[in-house]
């Protein structure tokens, strides 16, 4: 069976590391990017099934990156993942497919990915 390929975009190295480990353990293939531009570059060159995007990043922030990604491929699902709970109910207006508040407990993130990818 083909593994779903995820891209984690976060400026914090250890967050990328944590999420990569956690999600690989779930059976996904995981790549990482440290900022918006880096992420766009990777998406241009490879096929991903889903992107996990931090909002607050230097340079191009998550919302800008989200718009760029959707411009390139509007069918590529993107989950916004931020420490702020503030904007949770706004995610759909920003064309994102999900919004997860960052937590040491990755249960919600994993469940949101499964829901979007349609995995039982």
């Amino acid at each position, binding site marked *: 069976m083909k593994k779903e390929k995820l891209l984690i975009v976060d400026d914090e190295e*250890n967050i990328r590391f944590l999420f990569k480990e956690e999600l690989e353990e779930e059976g996904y293939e995981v790549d990482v990017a440290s900022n918006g531009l880096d992420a766009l570059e990777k998406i241009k060159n490879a096929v991903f099934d889903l992107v996990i995007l931090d909002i*607050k990043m230097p340079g191009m*922030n998550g*919302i800008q990156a989200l718009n760029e990604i959707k411009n390139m491929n509007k069918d590529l699902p993107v989950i916004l993942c931020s*420490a*702020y709970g503030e904007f949770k109910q706004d995610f759909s207006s920003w064309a994102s497919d999900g919004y997860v508040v960052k*937590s*040491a*407990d990755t249960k919600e993130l994993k469940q949101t990915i499964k829901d979007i990818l349609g995995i039982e």
Partner: protein
Amino acid sequence: MNLIDIFGKIIVISHSNLEIASRINAILNIIAQDMPFDEAIVYTLDTDKRLTCRYKNDKSALFHLLNEYRSHIGEGVVGSVAQKRMPQSFTNKDVPPRLGCLFYPDLDGFIEKYKAFSFLPLSDDSYLYGVLFVGSSGKERLNDSEKVFLSMVAREIGGILRSNQLIISSKKRISELATLSELGKILSSNAIPRDILNNIAFIIAKASNASFVTIRLAHSFLKLDSQRFTYGDFESTSGEDVIRLEEESKKRGKTVSPRDLAPEGYKNTVVTSLYSAPLTSKGRFLGTVTIGESQTVSGPTVEENGRYLIETIANYISSGLENTLLTTKLKDVVNELNNAQKRLLEQETFRNLGEMTANIAHEIKNPLVIIGGFTKRLAKKARLDHTENKYVEIILKEVARLEAILDEILNYVKESPMVFKECKVSDFIDELVYLFTSDQAWDKIEITREYDNDVPSVPCDDQQIKQVLINILMNAHDATHGTGTITIQTGRKIINDRPFASISISDTGGGIDPAIIDNIFNPFFTTKEKGTGLGLAISNKIVLNHGGHIQINNIVDKGATFIVYLPLKNNIIREELI
């Protein structure tokens, strides 16, 4: 002594500088001695239109008896002479004259001594001042030249009385004017309302010789610690009467005294006269002023001119008082505005503090997620014994607790239920402009306001909408680098069949770079060195929560216009606008 010589003496006295009483008494003494007469008496007219003996020759025997009776005009001989203004002379063969209002039997013995009496009116063309009475025991009757002479004397005495009355009324007028001028001075002073009102009460009391003056202000007019200002004491003697009178003068809208009301309703035993006048300005009831005089006070009484005086004063002080008190009200409003400004500044500080806290919380959140996340992984991979597992559990529990705390901080623009009120948007703007313009950083910014007065009130959470306007105004200020023009307009617009109120804020700050304009509502997007990137994001969110939206009209190199649209109630102004 012939009559001409006598008249010469009289003229000299009449034109002298002596007191009125001395002049008249001297004239009466001259005619009593030189004519001669036993009695030479002058009745004068009191303010209650009754004739009273007031002046006499020194040897008069009748004065003390006649003095006890005061006759109305038309009553008795004196009254009838006064009424007809025609002299009347009698001899003792005539029926003894009724000198006063009564036929006075005790007088009979005296009267019989006198053979000739004469009564002459003291009057000019328009006014009656009194009556001159002369009586002689020696003469059988008065001859014609004596009658002519007496009428000349009567004219002289009438002249003295008339000039005296003129002097009295001018003195009264002068004292009134002095009172009014004093009142004017205190009304235009900068004193606090309490002092002004207490002073007014004092001045009126002095002017009217009243034992008390009390001013009561309507509650609806101005809220003060006390609504009553009093000189003297009325509560111990006629407190209830005063309050009833005040109510009545308010109800009737004119000056009232207990006599105007049911007399039995008033105890009024101590206070002889009481007047209450309403204070009204431009049809507005401000309160009442009441004066009262107790029986122990003698001299010119309130009774005599109380109504006139209180009416004059009430008219005079009403509008001045209103102005004075409105000034106070204005001061209160200014104070309130200053307080509102302080509160707004505090809110602004809190808002910045909130954003700062959120930033810090965000910075802490990431390492915490990492600590917690890896602790979990460690626990899963390592084979831990029971105790070690317990340690891990504790770490995870504490991480979860910290996360919960941070989440709460990070939700600082809480999804608290909005408190909707009907608000006038121009009021917010005025409040904010006032707030900003008192800040030095805004000195070189010209703020123009153009209000559409037909914008109805908007249902909104005023605190949140103010926050939105603060954000946009602060951005406009930053865009102009502190120098330029900001124009604020209000208006109405139908969008997709629904009515909206609009608040448009334009600046001359050169506009927004088109490359970034799509991002300006995104959270954490900022062009400012110290910006959090949350201001417009949150503003946008607030406006969206209200069912409205923010529109940007950007003219590069000129300026940007932010238009906040807030929905109006559906049924309002729709027809008007279409």
